[in-house]
């Protein structure tokens, strides 16, 4: 069986936590959650994972620690954490919006609210997961800055930049980062089957594109087996990211509520 798009996404998410050491991985959404657990099972065994509520749990689900919200917030400000949040909008310098669409004082569409995006982005590494890469999400300017981007952090001064880091943005098409000279969003890799042109067309701002864009790496046989038989045997990942190569059984584009709530229920801060 060939590798599906969702499986490349899992690998790309898992890679976010490589070499992070002994920190809490906080994935938001199903694919990042499978990715974090994959990393923990393989190349990042020291990661801490939560049950999505108040417990830290091992790979077999056994409790190893207590992380109620109040201590969770200390984990954030203490910096021993790498969160992967969602984004309703994200711009060229990584400013992110999950609060509302339109004028904040009278929103066209109310979303989650600021949640923990401001505290996350100023205190611990914050990556993003975007299951549907489109110009509606990748915008020139976000309506409300919840997660702080590189330009806004720089303008706000040393207290904002001191611990600010946005390691990567993973989408259904590609991996992006901010490893360019001006910290503008850069295309780091495309998933096999995706072209650079496709990513450019799905991005609503000028993307920094290096001369050579590699493909997202292949999963190992052991990783594939883990994903398919241990971490996501029901294949819920395909609901969040339908495979373009196969006829989707149900193309709900990740809007299925059960798929979304399964690990980190509606928590914008992605604990």
């Amino acid at each position, binding site marked *: 069986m060939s590798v599906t798009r969702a499986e490349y996404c899992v690998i790309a998410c898992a890679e976010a936590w490589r070499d992070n050491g002994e920190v809490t991985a906080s994935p938001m959404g199903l694919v990042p959650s499978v990715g974090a657990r994959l990393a923990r099972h393989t190349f990042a065994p020291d990661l801490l994972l939560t049950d999505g509520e108040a417990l830290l749990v091992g790979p077999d689900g056994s409790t190893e620690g207590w992380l109620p919200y109040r201590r969770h917030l200390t984990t954030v400000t203490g910096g021993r954490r790498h969160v992967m949040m969602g984004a309703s909008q994200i711009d060229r310098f990584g400013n992110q919006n999950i609060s509302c669409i339109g004028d904040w004082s009278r929103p066209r569409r109310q979303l989650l609210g600021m949640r923990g995006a401001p*505290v996350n982005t100023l205190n611990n590494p914050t990556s993003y997961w975007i299951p549907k890469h489109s110009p509606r999400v990748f915008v020139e300017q976000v309506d409300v800055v919840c997660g702080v981007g590189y330009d806004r952090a720089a303008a706000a001064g040393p*207290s*904002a930049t001191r611990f600010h880091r946005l390691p990567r943005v993973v989408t259904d098409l590609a991996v992006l980062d901010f490893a360019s000279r001006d910290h503008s969003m850069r295309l780091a890799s495309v998933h096999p089957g995706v072209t650079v042109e496709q990513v450019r067309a799905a991005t609503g701002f000028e993307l920094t594109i290096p001369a050579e864009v590699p493909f997202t790496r292949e999963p190992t046989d052991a990783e594939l087996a883990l994903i398919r038989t241990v971490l996501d045997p029901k294949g819920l990942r395909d609901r969040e990211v339908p495979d373009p190569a196969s006829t989707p059984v149900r193309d709900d584009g990740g809007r299925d509520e059960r798929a979304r709530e399964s690990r980190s229920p509606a928590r914008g801060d992605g604990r």
Partner: protein
Amino acid sequence: MSDKTMSAQDVVGRLESGMTLGIGGWGSRRKPMALVRALLRTDITDLTVVAYGGPDVGLLAAAGRIRKLVTAFATLDSIPLEPHYRAARERGAFELTEVDEAMFMWGLHAAANRLPFLPVRAGIGSDVMRVNPGLRTVTSPYPDPSSGVREELVAMPALRLDAALVHMNRADRAGNGQYLGPDPYFDDLFCEAADAAYVSCERIVDTAELTKEAVPQTLLLQRSAVTGVVETPNGAHFTSCAPDHGRDEAFQKLYATTPYEEFAERFLSGDEHAYQSAVQAWRKERDQ
């Protein structure tokens, strides 16, 4: 020790229009829903509500009781967006002070410690500063030893409350409150930040009973910070109240998909007993 037991009606009898009211719990988790329902039966309005928002905020917003909301979000957890909160925001029904989750916590800490503010890193650089033009920063008097930089941080103002409403698993008649689930949330801070704190609970027990099977660390609320105690079994319904009961997902879905007027007429027009009976009747009807 004085006996602080009272009814939910007694509690709302002590509240007034225009008050700043803190509501404990988190999202759709251990919310003092019976007290919120009691509040909805009064004509108290014009409230400043301070909460990690869930259906408490949704109900009060739908009923038009909120003048100003202080929050970081409103969610039903398993349903990410609180539909009544959302609708109220989109029609501009109330004023909003939107802060970050951590800023909110430090605002409660400041109030509980009788400080005018506490410094927090969160907020700088984000639109929290734009949408809260009154928010000020504070510069550290201590330069960083290596860089010499004096950090500029947000001075999160104290979230002082006229009254707090929280729901516990157990309490005694004096107001010692106990949580038995995995997370205390911030209910102790809400009580300590308030001039008067009202605690509803699943069951009132004798003081000695509290630590018979549970460890003392579960005693979250001290009676010195509690004004009144109300026994309201299933009083957090339809939010979760582990380990006594989980969230009533089916009922929450009904709440989220029913127009408020229709929902209120069926479930909120009588007292708490009528509410619980109506929920039972709805369940029976659904199961047939």
